[in-house]
């Protein structure tokens, strides 16, 4: 059973990312805050007696369900459109070179000067914007897998899909992000 301290530490470690992830999905900070709060309380009410190691997966699942509930309640047409956009493919991405983006990215390590730090915030903003513009399922898979650091099986469990779908969504998300960032001259 997770102690109060463990539960507190867990929520503290996850709350900011949970908020951003939800805000990416619902595009409304107030709604995202409400959803995160509801998810935290739901976790505390129903699963506080579970071992601390189980909390991350449980919380992510609760948060995803709460977000879906929000969409159902809101019946926002855009959410449906976003879901359908998961099936779209990018016809212009055939000759895109992921390695080039990665090399550019790694070449810049340690080269940031004090003058660059002002622009860095803008870059972070643009990266965030690109992430928020990913199709919903791709973004969900990308954030769970690489931001929340769940493994493929856990991500699949949270998203309610197969592990193959998670890999596909993640791969497409990374390619889309790399391409979009490269087009803007940004090296993540």
């Amino acid at each position: 059973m997770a102690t109060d301290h463990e539960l507190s530490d867990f929520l503290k470690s996850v709350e900011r990312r949970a908020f951003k992830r939800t805000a990416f999905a619902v595009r409304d900070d107030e709604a995202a805050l409400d959803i995160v709060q509801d998810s935290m309380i739901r976790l505390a009410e129903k699963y506080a007696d579970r071992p601390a190691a189980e909390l991350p997966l449980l919380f992510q699942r609760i948060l995803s369900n709460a977000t879906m509930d929000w969409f159902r309640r809101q019946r926002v047409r855009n959410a449906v459109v976003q879901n359908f956009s998961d099936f779209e493919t990018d016809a212009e991405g055939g000759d895109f070179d992921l390695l080039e983006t990665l090399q550019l990215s790694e070449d810049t390590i340690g080269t940031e000067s004090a003058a660059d730090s002002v622009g860095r915030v803008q870059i972070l903003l643009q990266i965030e914007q690109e992430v928020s513009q990913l199709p919903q399922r791709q973004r969900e898979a990308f954030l769970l897998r690489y931001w929340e650091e769940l493994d493929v099986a856990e991500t699949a469990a949270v998203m309610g899909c197969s592990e193959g779908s998670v890999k596909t969504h993640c791969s497409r998300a990374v390619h889309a992000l790399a391409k979009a960032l490269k087009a803007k001259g940004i090296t993540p």
Partner: protein
Amino acid sequence: MNGSRKTFDRPTTPGPHLEAMEARLALRIAGRLNQRTEALPHDISERLRVARLRALDRARELRKLTTTPAHQVQGGAVLVMAGPPSWWLRLASLAPLALLLAGLLLIQRSYLNQQIHAAAEIDEAILTDDLPPQAYSDPGFAEFLKSPRSVE
């Protein structure tokens, strides 16, 4: 056409090398997102903190409910009610229902008694009253007189 086909296939079946590159790039992007997350506006951080504290309070309340005995004497004088309802509380909650059932049974019984008394009064009035002479001309009454029961 070929280009789009190629794009569709490549991410679905990435080789180990491509997967590793994707993962490295993804983790770098995630690292950047972390930097942004650290700089959340104060009001949002504060609301998240309040939400966390609420959740923790709720967890504590529920733990207390499941671990505290039904009633606990504190300082030898104060009776504190907590935890799930005890057996006598459950019994007490059934008392109104039992009272209602008892009342209904009582009403039914008194109604039945009233009916019996009323029927008895009518029978008594008929039996003790003088028999009208016309009764002997009634075939039904004559049959009644002839029946073995009337002989008894």
